[in-house]
């Protein structure tokens, strides 16, 4: 390692940061579970609440638990997760497109 002699301490995580992340994540967990348990919204609206709180909570975990940002220490982790996201969109989107096309063709042949 090139850094073996030049000892640069990393950014030290704080208890305050983890507690902030935990409280936000807790709220974003209680909201969807609450709506599913008490069924106060329509099914479609509840699914939207689940999706939105899930995406927000992923952001909370990435920011406060995995410490992702554009600082020198974290930059390449952040870039590589964005790249993975791109690969994911291609693979998941492409497969769904393929399945859907297959499904439509099946229906046309079968009926």
């Amino acid at each position, binding site marked *: *390692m090139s850094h073996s002699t030049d000892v*640069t301490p990393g950014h030290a995580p704080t208890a305050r940061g983890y507690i902030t992340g935990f409280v936000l994540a807790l709220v974003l*967990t209680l909201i969807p579970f609450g709506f*599913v348990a008490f069924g106060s919204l329509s099914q479609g609206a509840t699914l939207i609440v689940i999706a939105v709180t899930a995406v927000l909570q992923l952001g909370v975990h*990435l920011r406060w638990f995995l410490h992702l940002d554009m600082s020198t*220490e*974290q930059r390449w982790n952040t870039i*590589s997760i964005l*790249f993975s996201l791109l690969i994911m969109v291609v693979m998941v989107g492409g497969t769904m497109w393929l*399945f859907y096309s297959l499904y439509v063709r099946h229906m046309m042949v079968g009926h």
Partner: protein
Amino acid sequence: MSSNAHDLNSIRAAARADTEVNFGFWIYLMSDVIIFSMLFLVYVDLSQRYAGGPTAADVFELRGVFLETMALLLSSLTFGMAMVNLHQGQKERVVIWLGVTFVLGAFFLGHELSEFAHLIHEGASFTRSGFLSAFFGLVGTHGAHVFFGLVWIVVMVVQIKLRGLTPPVASRLARLSLFWHFLDLVWICVFSTVYLPGVLQGVAA
């Protein structure tokens, strides 16, 4: 005291995210992201294929999933506390927080395994339908990761006990931290894609 400060600096340097080994481990986690995204895709595609067997609403139990979710979320916080104490060089506290994290992870896994055993006992095994194959495949893969996370925690506690908070130990703890938080991240997707929509179907029916 100056040697202590130097030790602390070398511990913090080893735990950096941009060391070669820690970035390499992050790349492994990114490959895991792709694996899980494909397992989620398979689950979504097969989630209505019951083959006359039990439906998602029949087999999912909201209370148990909520307890599992709370245990895993709390374990993310306790692992965070272990990392905070690592950066302060507080060896005994690191061990205590790792212990608490292990107990929460073991509770999660134990609860999941008893759910699996119950389903298989009821005839809702992974061979019953496409839905159940995809369910066991996805949730089981996550559970397997948690299992290896628990093994890793035990190994790290033993290493801390034997060698203390050395830079190599700190470097490994930084990777275990990424792994553990990553598992909680995947679990958010699991309860949002599998359990909550599944239970919701039963509420609407």
